[in-house]
């Protein structure tokens, strides 16, 4: 079959909502787009362990410590399924990690912000995981089978995290004046970066159009961002807190909240490496990897020796 026929057959499957599986023919660009997107997502999970991990040793109660450790562990698990999903496209986990460490692959910029108080744990759950879910729920129906199946698991856990985050903020918001101030401060710092998580405006988005056609992506950045604003603008009232946006107000005509301008200069700065914690986060990941090199080598050497011994015994 000439390539054009493969391509049109492929697009027919996509249009009919038939999942693409690892052994199916796919355009090279589709494969590359998925590798970029899935590995970026996996890296985000792994780097995302760091800002929350920052509070594990200081969590204020045994119950909160347990919840936080379990949550960070879930993120490691998400990283694992996503790396595995990407591996079905013909790239190894080590290669992807190499791309993260060299700066070639990106991860979500939100994790380049510092976690300064305990309330940041709640705010990350509520806002950051909340924004992530908005992006991720449609991915449960994304056209590539292994990715969509991984996302179904990820989304279940993420929505649990979001509820936990909100519940933790709710407790603080009913607490002492210091605790309430902590919540407001955390919302003030995490709100705008959370909005940036949806990516540039549709008109500026580099990869969007083709991804929509291939059903890798199903809604535009701006659509999802609007849904998020509408949801959070209501939920924040339950906390008795405010969002740091003087332009936020309900628009009867649109049946949506209007909101202020995002500082895209900050966004592009953080994306290109100039955020408060970019270097710190990447250094921490590289250090864990480098410090673990002898462990991985030893495990491999032992497995080889054991295999050789077993073979000898069998012979």
């Amino acid at each position: 079959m000439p390539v054009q026929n493969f391509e049109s057959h492929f697009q027919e499957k996509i249009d009919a909502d038939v999942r693409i599986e690892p052994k199916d023919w796919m355009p090279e660009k589709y494969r590359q787009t998925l590798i970029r997107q899935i590995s970026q997502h996996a890296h985000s999970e792994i780097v995302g362990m760091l800002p929350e991990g920052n509070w594990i040793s200081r969590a204020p109660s045994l119950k909160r410590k347990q919840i936080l450790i379990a949550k960070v562990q879930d993120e490691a698990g998400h990283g694992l399924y996503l790396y595995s999903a990407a591996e079905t496209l013909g790239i190894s986990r080590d290669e992807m990690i190499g791309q993260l460490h060299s700066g070639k692959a990106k991860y979500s910029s939100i994790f380049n912000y510092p976690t300064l108080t305990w309330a940041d744990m709640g705010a990350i759950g509520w806002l950051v995981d909340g924004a992530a879910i908005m992006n991720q729920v449609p991915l449960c129906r994304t056209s590539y089978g292994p990715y969509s199946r991984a996302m179904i698991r990820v989304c279940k856990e993420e929505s649990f995290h979001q509820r936990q985050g909100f519940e933790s903020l709710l407790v603080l918001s009913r607490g002492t004046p210091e605790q309430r101030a902590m919540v407001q401060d955390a919302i003030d710092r995490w709100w705008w970066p959370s909005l940036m998580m949806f990516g540039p405006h549709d008109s500026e988005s580099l990869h969007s159009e083709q991804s929509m056609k291939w059903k890798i992506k199903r809604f535009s950045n701006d659509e999802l961002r609007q849904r998020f604003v509408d949801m959070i603008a209501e939920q924040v009232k339950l906390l008795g807190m405010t969002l740091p946006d003087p332009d936020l107000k309900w628009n009867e005509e649109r049946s949506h909240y209007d909101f202020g301008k995002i500082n895209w200069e900050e966004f592009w700065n953080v994306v290109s490496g100039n955020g408060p914690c970019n270097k710190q986060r990447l250094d921490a990941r590289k250090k864990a990897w480098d410090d673990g090199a002898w462990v991985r080598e030893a495990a491999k050497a032992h497995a080889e020796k054991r295999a050789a011994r077993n073979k000898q015994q069998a012979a």
Partner: protein
Amino acid sequence: MNKELFIYTLHLADNALILAQRNSEWTGHGPVLEQDIAITNIALDLLGQARNYYQHAAALYNSLSDHDKNSLEGSLPRPWKSFHRELQEDDLAFLRDEHQYRNLLLTELPKGDWAFTVLRQFFFSAFQHLFYQELLQSSDPQLAAIAEKSSKEVAYHLRWSSEWVVRLGDGTEESHRRMQEALADLWMFTGEFFTAAGYEQAAATEGFGVDVLLLREAWLKKVEAVFAEATLEPPKQSWSQSGGKSGQHTEHLGYLLAEMQYLQRVYPNTTW
């Protein structure tokens, strides 16, 4: 009996919490993703055990007579005394001072490298595994129940840590050297498992606790079996450090608690 049971339960809780705290320092920094998850899992299991014990200890204390409560004065968190409410698990974990902690010194040592962490876990899990088999017979139904639940978890901790001791002992020249170093650092802290504090002797006599001295031989046998496979040798040295069980700690515990307890200390009696 509830007085000794309270102290004994705290000792078991402290062991589990302090080691959970140390292991959780690996979360996000493990040598490979699967093992990051595994060590975090062990931290979570230990934290769960600690919570069961602290909740039990708090309930025991709250049900004591005033006379018995007064006699426990020195083991209680000082800031809690001004709260005028019942004792809770978090008061015990976050508001006691170093000298009131009764954990084994082994559990509080800094996490070191992966060799140190897995060897410490192996020593501890090999002990806990034997310990829980005995605690199942405890005359205190709550301790027996915790033992039953925990022994399943510990069976996994022991298998996991044994495998790592073998892997690193047998792996490469470097991993073998690191295991030898970890062994030289840790061995002197293993004797404390089997040196009973006063409240442990009382616990064994009264039937709610375990006579730790009786576990020594089986523990050594397990260590030797795993070491043989790992091509490691248990040191000849017999001198050992102790004191943790009675509140005499290493310099490390103070820093660990300062960090762990910070929020509860700064904002006392607050709900989180």
